C-alpha cells in the first residue's frame, strides 16, 4: 500500500460521514438448526425490511449462490451447506417464497469452480436435490456463469457506479444484465484474504473464468475454463481477456490484500445487489473454504461453528455491516485490526464508493440486538 492509499483509507470514515449514504433496515434472527420452517421465517424477515412482493412481482430474480471451490472438497466430511456453501434448504424455501411473491422467473447462478458445464450437474455433485428445486417455482433456471455456458449469447459490459477501484467495468454473462432483482445468498464466513465473505464478497463469483481466469484467452474468452482467477484478480499478474476492460492502474499494488477487497466492491457496484441474505446457522470459521490451511491461514485456525444466525437486508453494505458485527468484529475496523488485520476493510471501501453505510448507528436492526446475538469468530474482540 502506498502512503497516498494509506492516508486516503484512513480518512474514509470521515469522508463517508459527510455524504448521505444509502441505508436500509436489516432483519436478524436467532435460528439454531436447519430443521425449521424457513418459508415462514424468511416471510417474516422480509416483512420486517419492507416486504417481498413489491420487490419481485413479475420480475426476473437472479440468485447468486455461494458454491465456492470444488464440491469434492469437504471440511471434516460435513455437508457443504453446513460449512461454506449456501444451504439447499434455504434455497428451496427462498424459491417457494419468491414464486408465491410473484417472481416471474428465478435464476440460480454461480461461476462453478473450474468448469463451464451445467450448473445443475455441479449442484448434483454438491448433493442438492435439483429436481425438487426445479418444481418449487413456475420457472427455475440454473446457469453456470463461468463462461457463456450455452445459455447466454453474449457477455454484457457492466460498469461500476463509482468509476472502479481496480476495474472500471466487468464483462459478465448476459444473465446478470437481464436481471431485475439480484439476490446474493451468502454464508457468514471469514475470508483468508478479505477478512470476511458475506453478501458483497459472494458476488466475486459472478466473474467468468473464461475472461478473468488463469487460463482465459488473451484476446477472446476461453469457453472451457478449468482454472481459478488468481492470476488476473488476486495477484494481478495478467490482464483479463481483451474483450473486457483492463485495470485502471496497472501500477497499483499487486497485492491480494489490497486488490480483492476493492475488486469485490467494484463487482457489487457493477451488478448491484437488491437482496442480501446471510446464513450463519452453521458455518466454518477462519476462512472461506476447506482448502485454507488449518494453521497457516491468515486467521491461524480453521473450524466449524454454529452461530445460529440469519440476516436479511435490502442493502448489501448495511447487511454485511450487521453480519460483521454479529461475528464479533468492529465493522469500521481499519487495516491491521481483525478481521481486516491483513487487508483493507471492504465495508469502508463500499462506503467510499457510495454503496451504503457501514455505520451501525445509521442502520436499523430488526428482530434482535447485535449484542445479544453476537458470536465470536476467530480474532474477534
Amino acid at each position, binding site marked *: 500500500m502506498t502512503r497516498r492509499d494509506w492516508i486516503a483509507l484512513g480518512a474514509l470514515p470521515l469522508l463517508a460521514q459527510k455524504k448521505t449514504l444509502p441505508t436500509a433496515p436489516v432483519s436478524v434472527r436467532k435460528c439454531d438448526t436447519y430443521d425449521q420452517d424457513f418459508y415462514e421465517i424468511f416471510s417474516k424477515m422480509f416483512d420486517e425490511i419492507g416486504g417481498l412482493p413489491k420487490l419481485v412481482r413479475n420480475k426476473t430474480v437472479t440468485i447468486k449462490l455461494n458454491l465456492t471451490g470444488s464440491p*469434492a472438497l*469437504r471440511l471434516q466430511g460435513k455437508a457443504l451447506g453446513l460449512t461454506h456453501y449456501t444451504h439447499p434448504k434455504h434455497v428451496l424455501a427462498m424459491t417457494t417464497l419468491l414464486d408465491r411473491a410473484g417472481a416471474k422467473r428465478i435464476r440460480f447462478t454461480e461461476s462453478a469452480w473450474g468448469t463451464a458445464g451445467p450448473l445443475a450437474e455441479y449442484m448434483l455433485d454438491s*448433493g442438492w436435490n435439483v429436481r425438487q428445486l426445479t418444481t418449487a417455482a413456475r420457472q427455475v433456471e440454473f446457469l453456470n456463469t463461468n463462461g457463456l455456458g450455452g445459455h447466454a449469447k453474449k457477455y454484457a459490459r457492466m460498469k461500476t457506479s463509482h468509476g472502479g477501484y481496480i476495474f472500471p467495468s466487468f464483462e459478465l454473462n448476459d444473465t446478470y444484465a437481464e436481471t431485475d432483482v439480484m439476490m446474493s445468498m451468502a454464508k457468514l464466513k471469514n475470508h483468508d484474504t478479505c477478512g470476511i465473505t458475506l453478501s458483497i464478497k459472494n458476488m466475486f463469483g459472478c466473474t467468468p473464468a473464461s475472461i478473468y481466469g488463469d487460463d482465459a484467452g488473451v484476446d477472446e474468452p476461453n469457453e472451457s475454463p478449468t482454472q481459478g482467477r488468481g492470476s488476473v484478480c488476486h495477484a494481478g499478474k495478467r490482464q483479463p481477456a481483451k474483450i473486457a476492460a483492463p485495470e485502471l492502474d496497472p501500477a497499483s499494488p499487486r497485492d491480494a490484500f489490497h486488490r480483492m477487497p476493492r475488486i469485490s466492491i467494484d463487482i457489487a457496484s457493477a451488478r448491484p445487489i437488491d437482496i442480501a441474505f446471510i446464513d450463519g446457522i452453521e458455518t466454518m470459521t477462519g476462512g472461506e473454504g476447506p*482448502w485454507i490451511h488449518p494453521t497457516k491461514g491468515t486467521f491461524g485456525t480453521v473450524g466449524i461453528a454454529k452461530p445460529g444466525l440469519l440476516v436479511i437486508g435490502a442493502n448489501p453494505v448495511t447487511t454485511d455491516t450487521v453480519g460483521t458485527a454479529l461475528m464479533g468484529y468492529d465493522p469500521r475496523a481499519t487495516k491491521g485490526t481483525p478481521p481486516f488485520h491483513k487487508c483493507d476493510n471492504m465495508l469502508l471501501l463500499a462506503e467510499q464508493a457510495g454503496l451504503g453505510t457501514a455505520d451501525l448507528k445509521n442502520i436499523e436492526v430488526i428482530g434482535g440486538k447485535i449484542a445479544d446475538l453476537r458470536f465470536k469468530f476467530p480474532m474477534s474482540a
Partner: protein
Amino acid sequence: MPLLLLFTALALGAAIPPAGLIPMRWPASDPEKLVALDASPINCLLIPEANWSNAFVKAAHAKNLTVLALIAPGEPALPRARRALDLGLDGAVLEGEFPDQEANAVREALDSQNKLTIQLGLRGRIPLSNDAPAVIGTFQGVWAGINPHEDGEAHAAPSGAPWIDTNAGFLRFIRASTDRTFWLSAAPPPSTIVTASRYLQMVSDTAMVGARWIITFERQFFDRITANEPKAVKEFNRLNLILKFFEQYRSLQSLPAFGQLAVVEDVANGALLSGSVLDMITVKHTPVRPIPFKAIDPKSFDKATMAVNVDPQSLDPNQQQVLKNFTRAGGTVLTAPPGWRMPVPRPGQITTDAEEVKKLDQIWKEVNAMTGRRNLGVRLFNVSSMLSNMLGPPDGSKVVVFLVNYSDFTVDSIAVHLLGKYSKVTLHWPERPSKTIPTYENEDGTGVDIDILETTAILVAEK
C-alpha cells in the same frame, strides 16, 4: 466350475473350495485367541512360520478354519513347506519373490499331498493364462484410500477432490483376463494411524472388482480384538458385516464389466500398474471395460461406442482389423499419438512414476475430452470420496453398480443417472435391509437417488 478348479477343490480335501476362502493374516499362536473368529465369516488363516504348531492347527480345524503356512523368501521354501504339512497345515502361501524352480517344487510337493499352494508374487508375473492355478495373487497391493502425502496432508486445493489410491484399476484388468480367484496382500502403512474404516475400505476396494484382500491388521488392533476389548470388537464386527455382505452378493461380482468405453491394453503397457489409465478413468466414475490383447475379438466390443487404444503398435494385424471394424461400425477409437508408448513396467513396480504420469497426461486429456460429460453406462453425482464399478451381463438385461466410500464420513444425496430405461432398481447395503428405490426419468434414461451411504452399496437395475 472349470475342471482344473474342481480338481483343486477336491484335491484340497477341504470343506471350503479355494474360491470360498476368506483369508486373514493371523499373527498369534495361542489357540485360545481363535474365539475372536466365532462370529466372523473369515475361514482361512495365514500363519507366519514362527507360529506354526499342530496344536494351533487342530484348534483351527475344530472351528472349520483352513490353515495355510505363510512362507516368505529366505531359506529354501520346500523344506519349510514340508514341515508345515507335517504339522497339519492345509497348504502354503508363498508371499514375495521366489525363483520359479523353488515355487514349482513347493507346488508339486503340495499337489502330491492334495494341499493348496498360493503364490503371491510380482504383479508383472501374475499367471493369467488358462492353466493358471485356482487362486492367484500378488503381494504388491496398494493400501487403498485417501492417503496423506509428503506434507502430511491429503491432496487439497480449491480445485478438486483428494486422489483415492485404489487397486481397482489393475484388478479390473485381472478380472477381464482370468476367472481365477484373486488374493491381494497389502499391509497398513507403518507409522500411520489406521482407523477401522480403512480396513473396510480395503475389503470393499478389492471386493467390488471380485478380488479378496488378505485381511491384515496392525498388530495393536489385532491384539485388542483377540483380547476382546469392546471397542475393537465392535469395529471388527463392522468388518465382518462387510465381509458377509460381499459374500452374499458374490455372484454379482463375477459379472463382466459393463459400459460403452473399452480400454485396450496389456501387461506390457501398464495394465497392471496402479495410477494408470484404468485408475484415472475409475476416478472419473466412467464405466470402463478393459480388453486385454488376447481378448480382442468383435464380441469384446459389443455395445461399446468408444475405445482407448493405449499401445496400437503392439497389436497384431488381426487385432488391428478388429479395431478398424469397430470404427467402421461407428465406434470412436482414441489412439495414443505416434511414438507414444508407456515404458515397460520394471520388475517390482506397483504404481506409475512421475515420468509415466507425465506421459499418461498426454493421452489423458484426450480421453477426458472424448468421454466428457457423456453417459457411458452410468453417471454418478456427489461421489467425490467414492469409487464405483459397473458390471452386467452382455445382454444388458440388468446392470450392477458397486459403490465404495473411501472417506471416514457418511455420504448423502448421491444421484445416479443410468443410461437407458430400467423398471426396477434395488439397493443392497451392509448396514440396512435391501430396498427398492424409486426411479425417475431423466435425459439419460433412468435416475435414482441414494439418500445415504456409509461404507459400500450395490445397486442393481433391471430392465
